[in-house]
């Protein structure tokens, strides 16, 4: 598998945060798709997966592993995370981070439509009116009384508005065996 790698910006710490959040969203997206059940009031659209094929596809675990496999294939995410970074210089970690950033970003963009939840910029004062979508906001600090709440937007939050996961094809019906994240590679001479 060819791993595309050009990084266009230096990697700021908050982007790692984004990666982690997005990664969590991925798993979330899989469950939504697999069980056709959503914790949120607005259902997540699953574009690539029409209902009729859902029954024929193997279990949700396999879908998660396949997606992690994509992050490894395009962005070497598992290689990066499974390594012990303590012995490396920041420059070495940075070079590898470019690979991860570029590749995983491409995968995220292709398969998920990720958007901020709050439209205001971070640091701005926001008001949460009575009846606000509680799932959209996590409150901290002096949480007392009834809404409306007024506070400072510390993190804009992330949501997924569309999931386009790869489908699994040609696997055994029972789907008991999980696919591999990445096969071992052997070059024949």
């Amino acid at each position: 598998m060819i791993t595309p790698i050009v990084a266009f910006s230096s990697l700021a710490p908050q982007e790692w945060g984004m990666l982690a959040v997005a990664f969590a969203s991925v798993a979330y997206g899989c469950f939504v798709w697999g069980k056709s059940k959503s914790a949120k009031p607005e259902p997540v659209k699953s574009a690539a997966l029409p209902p009729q094929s859902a029954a024929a596809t193997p279990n949700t675990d396999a879908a998660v592993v396949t997606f992690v496999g994509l992050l490894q294939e395009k962005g070497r995410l598992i290689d990066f995370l499974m390594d012990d970074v303590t012995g490396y210089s920041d420059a070495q970690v940075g070079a590898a981070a470019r690979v991860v950033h570029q590749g995983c970003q491409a995968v995220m963009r292709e398969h998920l439509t990720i958007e901020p939840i709050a439209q205001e910029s971070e640091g701005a004062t926001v008001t949460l009116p009575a009846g606000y979508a509680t799932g959209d906001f996590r409150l901290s600090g002096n949480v007392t009384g009834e809404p409306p709440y007024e506070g400072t937007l510390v993190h804009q939050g992330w949501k997924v508005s569309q999931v386009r996961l790869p489908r699994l094809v040609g696997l055994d019906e029972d789907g008991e065996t999980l696919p591999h994240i990445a096969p071992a590679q052997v070059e024949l001479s």
Partner: protein
Amino acid sequence: MAASPFVVGIDLGTSNSAVTLTEFDAESPSRIDVLQITGPNRLEAKHALPSSLYLSAADEFPTGAFQLPWQDESPSWTVGDFAKSHGALVTDRLVSSAKSWLSNPHVDPRSKVLPFGSHIPEAEKVSAVDASTRYLSHLRAATLHTEREAGRDRSLENASVVITVPASFQEVARNLTVEAAEAAGFAEVVLLEEPQAAFYAWLHRVGDGWREQVSPGDIVLVCDVGGGTSDFSLIAVTDTDGHLGLERVSVGEHLLLGGDNMDLALAYIVQGQLAEGGHEIDEWQLWAVVHACRQAKIEFFSDPNLTEIPIAIPSRGSSLIGDSLSATLSRESVESMILDGFFPLTSIEDLPSDDASGLQELGLPYAADPVISKHLARFLTRSLANLQANESLQSLVADRGNDGFLRPDAVLFNGGVFNAEVVSERVMALLASWNGGEGVRMLEGAEPDLAVAKGASVYGRIRESGQGVRIQAGVARSYYIGLESSMPAVPGFRPPIKALCVVPQGMEEGTELVIEGQEFGLVVGQAAEFRFFSSDIRSGDEGGTLVLNADRELAENACLQATLPAMEGFPPGERVPVKINAVVTELGHLQLWMKHEASGERWKFELEVRGDS
């Protein structure tokens, strides 16, 4: 739900293929994302289908790895994304550029020789026609499947199908494309030249506004630089009783040179940089670099403020952090490589070096000279010769002096490389420099990426509905049959071969022609074979025109074969007098027949590639 009649437009590209679909009453064609195998057991929909075929080894992948939802059995091969990425590592099993093999004059496109030069068993190899059939078959099935899943159960019986081909495709390659399409399950297909498709897409995009961007007598250059090939055409803007019309007046030669060459050139810069630092990279890493350079190129061209882009080369093994390499690609090196390497400001007299040593390794005839500017100069020079050969063509265009080349008034760009303003600006500067400093206009509203597939759908709808402007085109080049010379044989001297024009340039769809003045005596039951020539610069020849020295004046690319069945009144061994009957069908397919005038019977010629081997 019954679906309404629709048009399928297929851009069957050298490196990537795309599909659009439009219903007759729809506003615009919509792209169909192509479901394809992107990894073993993994199916995804992508904008384009890489035109790559991977022939896996027995037991290389688990059974079912390449099985598509519309297939009952699991094939041992796959086309598209995974075929391309995995095939880059196992090149012996990768078929790519099949389209260019269709037009290769040296190797029969029906012979099973691909992957070319590969060491896999002969029985596993495929022909260029087979490969094209598999791409088309995949596109057909994937499109119908996607539509079915969206609740539209379509049948191709309701469809008209337009497939684009390079304007440079000879009749043989066009016929083989039709053959592949039929084998792929498309009943009737219309072929459309790619530069024309780009032009139709532009017409559709700008709507009635197109009349404000051009005027009668103008010549528009369609400059199409794709991934693997470059293709040029000239379209004249005509005035018939006050109505603006369009006529394609010239097409270029097949040029295996495109954006992929640029990416590779950039990758070599990076590879050199790494080598200077003492790091050798392997094939796998080089492909990663090519891919990275393609991204970097796009990024540079879309953000004029970037001065350099870091390229990280991942390690082969799992220790990514310790073993990855870094390099930097600067804007300066990218621009100088692409602008000065491929689009330098050369003079109009500076034509590509042909390197016609005849010793070129069998394989694809890649352009020996990577300078696109020179190929463009050659095209415009040849176009003038073509125009001057025919008075009615000449009368279509405004008088433009004689500078030794046909000066275009406007340019329509197509192909991803022209997303970069610096590149289109460079071509504009080049044309202006040939034009004594006077600039040419750039047609506004071009959409370099998906135009060909969209234009195919737009054209299909115009054909069906009869509504909309059509480009007058006809057959792109004239065709000739070689006549045996009656000169006595002399050792060491090959007598010049004469050739008879059987299809004049510009012959239109739905017309036919019987060549008078020359009868052939063919023997019943024996195969007859003729040499077959073409020219893209002899617009003045008519059916029956004799060219005295065909070897020098014309290009030979095929042979014609036919066997006359037994016929009443002609005992075996006797000669039947026949005339050549050229037909261009309503679908635009060229056919040649032998016609026995007395009985009215006729027999079809088959076009065969005259293989060197």
